[in-house]
């Protein structure tokens, strides 16, 4: 190797390191000054990861935490000391496991129950449980998903264009087709799978937390009435109540004969989600005061 090659190689490596460190410092300063709240995810996995990381990096555990799936994830405009940890595509059991990753616990946890045989996402839980990664992310916010430059850019653009996330405009045929699909999927849930996968995970997770004096409150997010009134759903609901009944657990009564509108048979439209949130907050306060 000639000395000129060696010199240009050294210059390259020196400026590569300097440039990299300089960019990191500049970006860390920028997010601290201009974007302390970060952005939201571009996809389900990232959104859930950001939601969980934000929960884990809170200076103090909130008083009430909601865990659940995409149904409960729509509940917004909560009281200031509440945190919605419900994650689309995931189950309540995952949320409960995330809660246990912190040393301090909330006073109450609102646990969404819905008939599902979905298993806990190992990929997300592993990522959140990695001590080295999480310690690094705690000390160096730059490494957190919410501060990815692309997410910051998107949130700036959203703000500038006044665009918020809303339900996609689905045709009536498509909505009906989705509702039919949910109907078919729910009728296919095997009792054995439901008990072994969903209820078992949930039972274990709540038992652990209840032992540590956390108030466990179960609730169900209303869906399309035709789905809720399905005989199969009633059976599964009975199984849930049987498996999760204990004097130390409370249940929020699901409003019967409700008129909440959904976008696809399952998920509440924003107005309905707001109405149900108010109902849930009221009921939870009443239960907590007992």
């Amino acid at each position: 190797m000639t000395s000129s090659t060696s010199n240009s190689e050294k210059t390259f490596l020196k400026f590569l390191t300097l440039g990299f460190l300089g960019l990191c410092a500049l970006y860390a300063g920028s997010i601290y000054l201009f974007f302390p709240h970060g952005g939201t995810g571009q996809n389900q996995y990232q959104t859930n990861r950001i939601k969980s990381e934000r929960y884990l990096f809170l200076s103090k555990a909130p008083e009430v935490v909601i865990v659940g799936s995409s149904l409960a994830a729509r509940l917004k405009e909560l009281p200031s000391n509440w945190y919605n940890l419900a994650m689309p595509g995931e189950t309540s059991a995952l949320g409960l496991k995330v809660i246990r990753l912190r040393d301090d616990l909330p006073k109450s946890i609102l646990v969404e129950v819905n008939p599902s045989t979905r298993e806990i996402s190992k990929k997300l839980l592993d990522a959140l449980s990695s001590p080295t990664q999480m310690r690094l992310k705690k000390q160096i916010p730059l490494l957190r998903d919410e501060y990815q430059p692309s997410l910051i850019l998107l949130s700036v653009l959203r703000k500038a264009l006044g665009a918020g996330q809303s339900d996609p405009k689905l045709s009536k045929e498509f909505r009906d087709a989705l509702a039919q699909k949910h109907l078919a999927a729910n009728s296919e849930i095997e009792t054995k799978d439901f008990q072994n996968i969903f209820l078992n995970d949930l039972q274990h997770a709540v038992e652990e937390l209840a032992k540590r004096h956390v108030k466990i409150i179960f609730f169900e997010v209303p869906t399309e009435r035709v789905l809720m009134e399905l005989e199969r759903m009633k059976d599964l609901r009975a199984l849930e109540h049987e498996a999760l009944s204990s004097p130390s657990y409370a249940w929020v009564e699901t409003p019967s004969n409700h008129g909440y509108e959904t976008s696809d048979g399952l998920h509440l439209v924003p107005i309905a989600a707001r109405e149900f949130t108010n109902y849930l907050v009221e009921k939870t306060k009443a239960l907590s005061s007992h």
Partner: protein
Amino acid sequence: MLFNSWEFVLLVLLTVLIYYLPFLRRFQIFTLIFSSFIFYGYNSPHLLWLLVGSIFLNAIITYLMRPKKSRRLLALCVIGVGLNLLVLMFFKYSPLIAKTFVLPLGNSEMGAFLVQIPLPIGISFFTFQGISLVVDSYRSSSEGNSVLKPKQTAFSYFKEIGLFKSFFPQLVAGPIVKAHEFLPQISDKKWKQVDWSSAFKALILGYFLKMVVADNLKDQTFFIQYPFFEALSGLNLLSLLFGYSMQIFADFAGYSLIAIGLGLVFGYKLPINFDFPYISQTFSEFWRRWHISLSTFLKSYLYIPLGGNRKGPARTYLNLMIVMFLGGLWHGAAWSYAVWGSFHGLALAVERFLSLRVNLPNSKVLIALRIILVFSLVTFAWLLFKLPRFDEALKYLAAIGKNITQAPNKEPIFVVLLFSLPVILYHANYLMKDRMPSSASPRRTAFLYAFLLFFILVNSGSAGDFIYFQF
């Protein structure tokens, strides 16, 4: 083991450390072979025997090719190529054969057995390298040259073949290295001789393309999945297809660059696999720029032996179709890949036919139109990679037309364009290179790579498998 996993980083660091320790230098080849076996057997140790078996098979056959008896040489070459193809056929194509021929005839026991045969990772790559070794040995022996170096022992020869066949940077997804390119490079390597800046550049660019571009686009192109795409607007569907085209390039070119960078770290120069393929004006140019190591392999070991273009136009077109049909099937054991390959074969044949008869002027507008046309056709053909079921691919195309008037969701389109931008700039930079200053200063280059490294740290997507691992 994935290139973007912590286990892999640890394996590389340990291997580099042991490899360059002066008192262990005589074990350099063993160090690399051992690390390669750990790399290959990490997830499925039971499949390691296949790699070891393939090494021994090819080493024995090519070792026997030493005597210069032409009849025996040819027989050994046929046996060697045949056995490599048999291994590939058995492990890769048994399920396809079962589904197409055995199960429809009602032989359910045999069919069930064939369907459950596992697909060992990287088998398409290391069997092709075996074929290259056998054919290169045959060619050099029939010209009177021995495949062995002067005074080389059988043990030393087997060791070198072990390294050639298992070298972990390119073991599971290429570039496909030909024996005549790799074997002469095997020698003592010294730390001082490593071209570190080229190695770092290849590694940084490779990881950037994979982790920032491909892994982020992967989460968008996830929706090229039935029935999810049915509800999306025509414009969103087109943007997803565009994004997939960018993703597959970033994923595979990224992997190849990482392999090249790692090769340099250990003192080996692996061939370039991608040369800005999306600026191609013709399909033949596209195949000179895309997965170069495969196209040169198919050219040297299939197209030319079939007669190439030396046996008249009709035979040339037929040869092109055969090569691309088989090249398509090499990518995956499904008929959709054969159709994908045949589409490219047909495009090459039509292009050749027209190029002999039509002379188009070389205006800039026409060049741009040709680039757009080739890119668009190549991109539409990628749909068969993402949706191997024909009915679903057709539904996707129908949905583009059906939903074209539907109002698009702008945010996903923006995200796709944002993460495609590096690939677009990468190609545009190449196109503009004639109009730019000849060479950037090391400082400017260093800052550019620092920028890429910064994005790897702060904007990587969730880790996903390399697309070409499945092949």
